[in-house]
């Protein structure tokens, strides 16, 4: 077999993302403990809830998931283009900047340096670095696509190209320091909603479109469905931001528009899901852990994107908005769906890159089941607790403090579920580490 692909950039992006995944999930667990024991690690400003929450959210989104997806893009795009990556040097430089950004983010956030706009908290000079790194990523990906061997581009490439464009615009326009008042909130949610809708969704979908056919050996179910799915996502997502502020101090028409478009999101989601299920057919029961991650990710994607439109309906929003229910929902998207896709991608790509199997398939199975069960415990406890809390809030004679105390059992279950999720990712990191390490020591013996 010829070694067309060097995969250096891809490899190191993936290693970094796996390590940072552990860091962010450890912080998540710390927060879950604080909900049960509020004085846990108390008295230390840098570890206060408000300081570490931003490290958790930004860390998961940019340090783990986006880094993993970038690594997988560096892996898939050259293969789909049938040519080498445009520049490994540029790729490694991009990684260097990315690692610097993430580490600087941890330090600045812990010291309380924040712009206090959700998912846009990074200080301006880090914003500039992100922009530079993203342009470098774009040059590499578009450069590779430009010299592709096949004229027709596969659906994963559409999504990756779309994401590069969407992210750039969202990031720059969202970060402009010109908004104030409720317009600032509206822009913030234009960004925040689309960070999920037009960065992590299309990246996750791109990876699922690549790895589901690869891991199952089935051909893509329908080209037509992928076209419909792509263009409806491109058209519909951007209108949704205001559904985060329903009943809030923004014009009613804006809320209604957001609701209408939110409900219509069922079209692209169900189209994409139908395509995934069609491609997965016949492989449900015989799958290994890679297929399990892909299948569970697809189901969670379906469910989270059913919840989303329902939450935007005024009657439902009245109850669940601002409660812990939403935390369950958000984790289903980011952990249950898109992290599962990225994990599957890493399990598939890493052995191909290193040209040897994963260190342990058994650990892979454990990784799946602990993640799956842990996540279900996490989400279901918050859904039940959050829904009850939402109903309690509708009766003003129940003191707020009592609604906080009522959450105790659910926070407790959430904490233990978080422990499962954490354990699972330790197994993941260990498995990856062992796979890499065996390779290196073998190389050394071969060399000596």
């Amino acid at each position, binding site marked *: 077999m010829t070694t067309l692909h060097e995969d250096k950039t891809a490899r190191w992006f993936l290693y970094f993302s796996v390590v940072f995944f552990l860091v962010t999930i450890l912080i998540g667990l710390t927060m879950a403990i604080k909900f049960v024991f509020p004085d846990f690690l108390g008295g230390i400003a840098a570890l206060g809830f408000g*300081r570490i929450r931003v490290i958790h959210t930004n860390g998961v989104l940019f340090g783990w998931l986006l880094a993993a997806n970038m690594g997988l893009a560096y892996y898939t795009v050259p293969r789909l283009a049938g040519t080498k990556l445009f520049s490994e040097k540029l790729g490694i430089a991009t990684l260097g900047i990315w690692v610097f950004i993430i580490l600087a983010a941890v330090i600045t956030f812990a010291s309380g340096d924040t712009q206090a706009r*959700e998912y846009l908290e990074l200080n301006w000079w880090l914003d500039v670095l992100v922009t530079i790194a993203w342009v470098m990523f774009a040059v590499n990906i578009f450069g590779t696509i430009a010299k592709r061997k096949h004229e027709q581009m596969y659906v994963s490439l559409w999504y990756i190209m779309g994401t590069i464009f969407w992210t750039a615009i969202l990031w720059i326009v969202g970060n402009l320091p010109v908004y*104030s008042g409720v317009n600032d909130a509206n822009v913030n949610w234009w960004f925040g909603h689309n960070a999920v809708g037009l960065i992590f969704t299309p990246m996750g979908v791109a990876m699922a479109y690549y790895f589901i056919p690869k891991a199952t050996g089935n051909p893509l179910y329908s080209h037509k469905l992928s076209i419909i799915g792509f263009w409806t996502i491109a058209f519909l997502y951007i209108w949704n931001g205001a559904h985060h502020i329903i009943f809030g*101090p923004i014009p009613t028409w804006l809320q209604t528009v957001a609701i209408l478009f939110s409900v219509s999101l069922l079209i692209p989601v169900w189209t994409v899901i139908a395509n995934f299920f069609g491609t997965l057919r016949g492989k449900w029961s015989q799958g290994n852990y890679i297929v399990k991650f892909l299948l569970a990710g697809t189901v969670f994607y379906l469910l989270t994107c059913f919840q989303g439109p329902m939450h935007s309906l005024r009657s439902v929003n009245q109850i669940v908005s601002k409660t812990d229910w939403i*935390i369950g929902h958000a984790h289903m998207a980011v952990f249950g769906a898109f992290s599962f896709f990225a994990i599957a991608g890493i399990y598939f790509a890493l052995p191909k890159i290193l040209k040897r199997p994963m260190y342990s398939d058994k650990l892979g199975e454990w990784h799946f089941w602990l993640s799956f069960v842990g996540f279900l415990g996490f989400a279901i406890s918050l859904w039940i607790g959050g829904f009850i809390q939402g109903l309690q809030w509708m009766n003003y004679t129940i003191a707020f403090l009592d609604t*906080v105390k009522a959450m105790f059992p659910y926070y407790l279950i959430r904490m233990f579920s978080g422990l499962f999720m954490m354990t699972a990712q330790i197994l993941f990191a260990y498995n990856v580490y062992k796979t890499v390490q065996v390779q290196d020591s073998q190389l050394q013996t071969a060399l000596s």
Partner: protein
Amino acid sequence: MKFESKAVLLVLGVAVFMALGTYFTMVVPLTDESLFTPTKDAKPYTAVELKGKEVYQREGCWYCHTQQVRNLLEETQRYGMGEEETFKRFGVRALIQAPPSQPGEYVYDKPHLLGTRRVGPDLARVGGKYDNTWQFNHLRDPRSTSPGSIMPSYTWLFDKNGLPTEEAIALIAYLQKLGTNIKWREERVEQVRRLQAKTSTQENHSLAELKENN
């Protein structure tokens, strides 16, 4: 020409769609005057309040507290004043609803702190709800004022003797300002007083009539 084989075409299509949605949901509101015209009572933050807002942002209070009373009956009731409170402070017995949040109250907020999550209660109308002593005690040790609370103890905003630092003082000044861009407490209590005065004179009238008829 198909977009599947032409990257430029694909990016162009994506850009047009994005511009369309952005124009209607972001640019149009940005030009809507009612969204950036201050309310009649709105006042910019003082230097101290602004410093307090920075502490609020730095400590991430806004991850646990929203600042928007939504336009829902249960919220205007919950974040208004109960009978006990109005009686103790104003000498009238009435359930007073808080006004729902209005765009004009936020014009001096940069960044906005509307928030999305209520681990603790909404703070949009908290100004004037408690006195400063309660606020300091609560900030230093939430469980001393609210047993069972899961809010963190902000001990680092207090000195060794438990006295509030400049930052804590600024933070509480900021909290006391929240929601006062509409003078709802005073105005609504006044309304209730007038109403009660009117009904009591009416009652006196009817009493007098009764006596005359006898």
